[in-house]
């Protein structure tokens, strides 16, 4: 009722302020019902192109299934090498996902909430492992953490710690390539969540840690699960960096992808069989997580 009386020099600011207010209200998730309603009315072309994209993703898997040696599958998959590689893969990928959570969460908060000096450069460095060829990533890790590496030589001299050729090394290689997926997902969610709820919690007496635990993390819960899922999946499929940095030794560093590569040398059919477990494990976990990605 007073908006009509506004004019003069403050008019511009008025528009800005009320736009911001509307945006804030919208971001609180006013009408999810309306959103679902709209999404069922997609243009037909869009839907078709979407199906083409899905086919691009699903067809290679269908190809694998079609070539799978179903009759010999049980004997191939129950071989000790494959079971050993499965165990190493699960340990390495889960440890890498946990590493991403522990290290990536603070980094995501710093990127989203702190004013940084060279934000673009820092963000580019964070995303670098996504574009780096994995073999290069592994070599870079050797240069940094290897026995002759930048930091690795001191680890070796002072603590007698040598990471290459150990399971810990395989975890580091997998975490290195998986970390950006987690950080980027969580940072985007934190940015989208904004400061509003954080400020509200502060006026209610919540301190900095309390706001992170009781407000920020529950608010971005779907993104947390999505980030962990992506990082884990990336770690599970990791090949090049692991091979280069951690080598390949049965029961220690030889993961399923490395076992698949070896099987390819001996018997391509066995390689298909081994990659089927990788797909089965990944699908099982990703499907289970999918429900958690979407907010209730």
């Amino acid at each position, binding site marked *: 009722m007073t908006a009509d009386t506004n004019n003069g020099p403050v008019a511009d*600011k*008025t528009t800005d*302020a009320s736009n911001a207010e509307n945006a804030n209200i919208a971001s609180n998730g006013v009408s999810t019902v309306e959103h679902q309603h709209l999404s069922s009315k997609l243009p037909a072309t869009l839907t078709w192109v979407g199906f083409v994209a899905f086919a691009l993703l699903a067809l290679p898997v269908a190809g694998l299934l079609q070539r799978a040696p179903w009759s010999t599958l049980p004997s191939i998959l129950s071989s000790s090498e494959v079971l050993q590689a499965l165990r190493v893969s699960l340990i390495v990928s889960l440890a890498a996902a946990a590493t991403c959570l522990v290290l990536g969460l603070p980094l995501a908060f710093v990127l989203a909430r702190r004013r940084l000096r060279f934000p673009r450069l820092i963000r580019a460095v964070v995303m670098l492992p996504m574009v780096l060829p994995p073999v290069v990533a592994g070599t870079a890790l050797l240069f940094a953490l290897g026995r002759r590496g930048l930091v690795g030589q001191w680890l070796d001299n002072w603590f007698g710690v040598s990471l290459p050729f150990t399971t810990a090394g395989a975890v580091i290689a997998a975490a290195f390539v998986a970390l950006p997926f987690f950080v980027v997902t969580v940072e985007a969610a934190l940015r989208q969540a904004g400061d509003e709820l954080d400020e509200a919690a502060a*006026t209610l007496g919540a301190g900095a840690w309390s706001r992170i635990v009781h407000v920020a993390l529950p608010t971005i819960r779907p993104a947390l699960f999505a980030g962990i899922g992506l990082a884990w999946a990336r770690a599970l499929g990791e090949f090049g960096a692991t091979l280069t940095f951690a080598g390949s030794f049965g029961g220690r560093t030889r993961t399923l992808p490395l076992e698949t590569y070896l099987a390819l040398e001996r018997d391509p059919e066995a390689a298909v069989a081994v990659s089927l477990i990788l797909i089965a494990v990944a699908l099982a976990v990703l499907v289970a997580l999918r429900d958690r990605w979407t*907010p209730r």
Partner: protein
Amino acid sequence: MTIELDGELARSGWTLQAELLEIGEGVTAVIGANGVGKTSLGRALAGLDHLQQGRLLIDGVVVDEPEAGVFVPAELRPVGMAFQDYRLFGHLKAIDNVAFGLRRCGVDRRSARSRASQVLERVDLDPHVWQKRPAALSGGQRQRVALARALAVEPDVLIVDEPLAAVDSSGRARLRSLLSESPARYVILITHDPVDVATLAQEVVVLDAGSVVSQGSLAEVTAAPGCEWAASFLGANVIAAKAQVGG
């Protein structure tokens, strides 16, 4: 006891000069056109924004003085705030939103919830919506929850930004009486509603073009509104509002 602000607030490209703004106990309405800094004033009091210069005292205690390196963060100030855009926690039920502040002060879950339900009753929210999450509430219901959440922690200073905008007219009268009975010693009412000003405010502060242009009782401010906007707001609207409430 008073809140004293003598300083400058800056926020993305403009500043608010408040030279010796003194706010006494009771209900103070802050009025002015959109974008003159009403909300920024509230944010500075709550500790969400820093003063550019000068200092801010609450009950004689300096809570912000950049030159002296003093800044008491929001969570340690005796200030509560009900936001214009509600800012309810989407992952919590209405009742847990209200209990949030109490839980952070160390109150156990059961007591916090029972206290929260008392406050929810006072803001006239039906018990059947207490267990709903904010996304399932209407605008008016959300506003009541937001108000209840700020009231629940019983702050000395209660800042309410457009407290009744989304509440229908029948609910407003009830919430107004709730605000006037609030145990908070200072209630700072940021509002566009002349009825709020006419019925609740013991004191009125008028902001315009980045500074405090008038301050005093309703009668004093009406006599010397300090800017065209306030003149028209206080003139026509308040008389109409008084007629509405009185009639």
